[in-house]
């Protein structure tokens, strides 16, 4: 302790340009035998008004507490615990559940092992690099009150599983990064038509079966562009072979495989921010999954969006403050190709036109407002099982006014 204090005092004394905190000194590896713990977090509150149904929702969307601990220069712990919708009552709900109110979950909990300054391995519950928002989902870093719909329903953000991952940079090409991960697989019994593979995530919660998932990415920073391509292939049978056989499903590591591909690009310069992404999901044995679970699983789904924004404060404050006006167009078809056992539903053809403002008085704080116009095809009446008058009215074209506040520290 005294050694630590002494080093900090020495750092303060001789460093004129910047005062080194204890954390900085630990980071620099100067006090390698000491350990340090870091706490940070993020959160967001939303208000949404459905202009057609004349209803609204106000909720503390999520609060996430990050706790990290550095054991030494080679090994660190990263954890993120998330509470959705302010409280948990009556079971499991929210983004990761299906009933009642709220949700509490671990979004990440992994150990990071540094192999060298540019290469590391993670092990535990972590988020593979797939898409833009999955890994970079802090609410102060993207426009719009809600996360982009394509990166919710096609790429099931935030998608974390138990496994190991390798991250690094290519030595001879500055800006080119890679990642590779091996995780547990999906659970096709939980697939829900209209939600892609989202409900099939196992999220580190008693993941079952022998299914595995592998993913990889290439990420390239060049000039003012961030370019990425990533892919995932994994099995989706989350039951043991005996049960899978009885359901006439393939079992094993890559039984009933699901493949996800995406490419994305981001551009940022002189107050302009643009991003574009396209993604496709293929489910090879959807017909067999439907026979086993009757969940109308499609053989393929896809989606993409393009977004442009401009920071009106850029000339005066650069990026230290921002008032960004933005627009986004999203398109997705969540049952683009159906097996013979599938039931068509044009409501899965969806467009979202989003326009809004993001005000950032300081980095780490965002106040957001947007308008979302949702346009879909006609729902297949054969799939509507709730009788009139309990049936919720469906509007093929509906508008939503959204407000939100968010923080990150």
């Amino acid at each position, binding site marked *: 302790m005294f050694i630590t204090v002494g*080093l900090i005092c*020495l*750092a303060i004394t*001789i*460093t*004129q*340009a*910047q005062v*080194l905190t204890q954390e*900085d*000194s630990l*980071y*620099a*590896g*100067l006090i*390698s035998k000491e350990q340090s713990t*870091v706490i*940070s977090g*993020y959160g967001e509150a939303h208000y949404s008004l459905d202009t057609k149904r004349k209803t609204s929702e106000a909720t503390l969307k999520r609060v996430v507490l*990050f706790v*990290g601990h*550095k054991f030494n*220069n*080679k090994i*660190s712990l*990263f954890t993120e615990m998330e509470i959705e919708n302010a409280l948990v009552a009556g079971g499991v709900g929210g983004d990761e559940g299906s009933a009642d109110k709220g949700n509490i979950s671990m979004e990440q909990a992994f150990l990071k092992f*540094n192999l060298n*300054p*540019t290469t*590391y391995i993670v092990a535990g519950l972590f988020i593979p690099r797939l898409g833009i928002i999955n*890994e*970079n989902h*802090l609410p*102060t*870093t993207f426009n719009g009150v809600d996360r982009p719909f394509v990166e919710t329903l096609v790429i099931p953000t935030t998608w974390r599983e138990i496994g190991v991952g390798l*991250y690094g*940079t290519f*030595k*001879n*090409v*500055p*800006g080119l*990064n890679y990642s590779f991960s091996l995780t547990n697989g999906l659970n096709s019994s939980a697939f829900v038509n209209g939600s892609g593979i989202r409900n099939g995530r196992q999220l580190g919660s008693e993941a079952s079966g022998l299914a595995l998932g592998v993913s990889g990415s290439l*990420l390239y*920073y*060049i*000039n*003012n562009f*961030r370019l990425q391509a990533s892919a995932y292939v994994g099995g989706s049978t989350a039951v043991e072979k005996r049960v899978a056989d009885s359901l006439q499903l393939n079992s094993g590591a890559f039984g009933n495989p699901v493949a996800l591909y995406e490419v994305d690009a981001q551009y*940022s310069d002189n107050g302009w921010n643009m991003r574009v992404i396209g993604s496709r999901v293929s489910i090879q044995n959807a017909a067999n999954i439907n026979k086993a679970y009757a969940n109308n699983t499609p053989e393929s789904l896809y989606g993409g969006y393009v977004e442009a924004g401009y920071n009106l404060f850029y000339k005066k404050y650069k*990026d230290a403050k921002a008032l960004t006006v933005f627009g986004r167009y999203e398109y997705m078809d969540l049952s683009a190709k159906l097996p013979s056992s599938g039931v068509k539903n044009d409501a899965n053809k969806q467009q979202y036109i989003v326009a809004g403002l993001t005000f950032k008085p300081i*980095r*780490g704080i965002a106040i957001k407002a947007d308008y979302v116009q949702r346009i879909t095809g006609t729902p297949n009446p054969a799939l509507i099982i709730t009788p009139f008058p309990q049936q919720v009215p469906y509007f093929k074209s509906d508008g939503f006014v959204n407000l939100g506040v968010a923080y*990150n*520290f």
Partner: protein
Amino acid sequence: MAFMGAGVLLESCSPGLPLLKTAAENKTLSVPLNKFSGNLLVVRGSGLENDILLVKNQNGYKALNLKCTHEGVGLTATDKKIFCSAHGSVFDFNGKVVKEPALRSLTEFRTETTNENIIIHLI
């Protein structure tokens, strides 16, 4: 000076940023001036958790710790900016945040120049 004897290995891998491997001695890293040909040099000190980016500017040399101030992931330096591949933070060559989620500037180490070397003081 003791650190003058540090083993030095220069890897100049075009088109990448040049990388200099050296050993830290007496809480300092020594970079021979004749190894610094451009405006940017990545310095890898043995025993250090992260690389250091040495930036030549009008006022001399600036030594930035290539560790993201968000969650501590090692940073990727290019000839344009400094990027965090994990969560998207971006820093300029003054170490200042260009894009969050990082909120704090990069840690900067004091430097001094002798006739033959740039000395990076690690504390």
